[in-house]
């Protein structure tokens, strides 16, 4: 039987975490995502599944708690919003370097600095290009509904353990705070279904000691390690996810993820009613990015527009994929303000009619 609930996106993440059999959550309060830890604490997950929830003294501490616990093969996660995620970057880089699976949730707010608590997509670069120091990538998932907030938790762990790499759910205050109907995933047991040969839980007689480290003082070794990481990131392409809406006959393509994709769905609908063949490609994974699909679409459409709550970040990846074949535009909203379908429609009509 389906289990339905009306929930905020942030609450859906928390409930899905308990149901995914997550072992530990470490976090620090920040708007607009504090509901994640609040919901967890209220649910007494230590009684429901034995899950540990701890309020850390800072985001620096929470990400390093995640690092330690992830090194023991447990399913662990943290969540925060932009300034807190910035503070975590050294730790995230260590986790990527040491190849540990974990989940980080960023419910983005407008920046830079303390910025605003309103929604934004301005952390795209930080999320998809590494974020901290060194050549590394996160697996980045971008939910566009409360349902996907719930569904992507388990999926994140699956991918994180498959690649032994941190996964990040990149969402924003809009999806985090809005309430929608959600079909809850079934309760999983809190046992690991993944390889545990590398974990640090005490050296037993039958094996060498396990070490969790990102240090290679010998640059030949670090070079080899970097090559291995790069090959891993490349191999993630097989897990790219995206949704295509009205793309089959489209001659103008919108690209948007998360909350902006929700708005663009309306734009497609209205454009179509006005006889304009507009389609929407919505990446569900931002890393791996649907580069190949966008390149394919570039042979079929006359123009593209990346619609983001930022000054233009994803548009750079779209341009790289399109490689000059058709014009690529950007429409963006800044500072925690949200574009309306009308705003985007106007921009689309200008480019659709006049642009080519």
């Amino acid at each position, binding site marked *: 039987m389906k289990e339905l609930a009306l929930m905020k996106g942030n609450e859906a993440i928390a409930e899905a975490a308990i149901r995914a059999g997550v072992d530990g959550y470490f976090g620090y309060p920040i708007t607009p995502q504090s509901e994640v830890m609040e919901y967890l604490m209220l649910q007494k997950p230590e009684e429901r599944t034995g899950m540990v929830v701890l309020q850390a*003294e800072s985001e620096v*501490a929470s990400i*390093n708690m995640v*690092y*330690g616990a992830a090194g023991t093969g447990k399913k662990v996660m943290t969540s925060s919003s932009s300034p807190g995620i910035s503070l975590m970057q050294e730790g995230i880089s260590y986790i990527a370097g040491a190849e540990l699976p974990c989940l980080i949730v960023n419910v983005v707010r407008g920046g830079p600095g303390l910025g605003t608590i309103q929604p934004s997509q301005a952390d795209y670069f930080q999320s998809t290009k590494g974020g901290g120091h060194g050549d590394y990538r996160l697996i980045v998932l971008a939910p566009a509904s409360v349902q996907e907030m719930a569904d992507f938790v388990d999926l994140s762990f699956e991918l994180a353990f498959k690649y032994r790499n941190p996964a990040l759910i990149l969402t924003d205050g809009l999806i985090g705070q809005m309430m929608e109907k959600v079909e809850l995933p079934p309760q999983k047991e809190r046992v690991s279904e993944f390889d545990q040969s590398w974990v640090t839980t005490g050296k037993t007689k039958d094996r060498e*000691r396990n070490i969790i*480290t990102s*240090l290679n003082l010998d640059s030949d070794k670090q070079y080899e390690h970097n090559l291995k990481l790069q090959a891993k990131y490349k191999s993630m392409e097989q897990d790219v996810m995206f949704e295509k809406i009205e793309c089959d006959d489209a001659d103008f393509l919108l690209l948007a993820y998360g909350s902006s994709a929700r708005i663009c769905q309306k734009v497609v609908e209205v454009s179509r009613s006005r006889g304009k063949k507009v389609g929407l490609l919505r990446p569900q994974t931002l890393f791996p990015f649907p580069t190949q699909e966008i390149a394919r679409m570039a042979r079929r459409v006359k123009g593209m527009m990346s619609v983001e709550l930022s000054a233009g970040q994803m548009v750079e990846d779209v341009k790289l994929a399109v490689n000059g074949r058709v014009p690529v535009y950007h429409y963006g909203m800044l500072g925690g303000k949200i574009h309306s379908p009308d705003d985007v429609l106007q921009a689309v009509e200008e480019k659709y009619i006049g642009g080519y």
Partner: protein
Amino acid sequence: MELNKIIKPENLVYKRTPLMTDANLSYCPGCGHGTVHRLIMEVVEEMGIQEDTIAIAPVGCSVLAYDFMDVDCAQAAHGRAPAVATGIKRLWPDKFVFTYQGDGDLAAIGTAETIHACNRGENITIFFVNNGIYGMTGGQMAPTTLEGMKSSTSPYGRNNETMGPPYKITELIAQLQGTYYVTRQAVHKPGPVRKAKKAIRKALEVQRDKKGISFIEFVSNCNSGWKMTPNDSNIWMEENMFPFYPMGDIKVDGELVKSP
């Protein structure tokens, strides 16, 4: 006398614990880090807890501690070892988890993690090697560098007025409810080594009994950083470090035994 006439089982008086690996120690000759490593591993061996022990190596001279100690180990970011240990211990409450940290790591960049792990009373053990200097990065001033002491970033001696005075984080954390056993030890002579080993045993027993934080500060030398011979550094340490960082127990069985 021929060597093979001496090397006989009945003549054996001391043996390196098998829990120290064969890797050459990366420490400068004369440094105390190696002795502290050995003592910890001896106690882990004697308590029979190797299979349940997870060590946290810091950023500092002992970053490579995992090359020398034959236990599972996580290497933590600079200062974050107590947070890393917390993450492990919360999910594996029956394992033995210890951090091994220098003074820069524990008392400067990692102050928040140190204080809060101690305040929460995490059931972990913190081994803190205070050599009064940043050894790894080439001898810069540490939070524990004594007044007037020269380092590469206090070349005319530490000026308490402009650089702040050294502070005793061990006395500070002893004030917190979550700490159960807090002591200060040294490893520069056989007597102190024996005492230090007893303290390590007690610390890990406190952890076994889930009483809260056990915390041992080892006041140690850094002959390279202090620019002295090993012997001179030990004499200088006794004459200058010990008066400011006095030896002995500070908190036992959850009670302060020395007023800070």
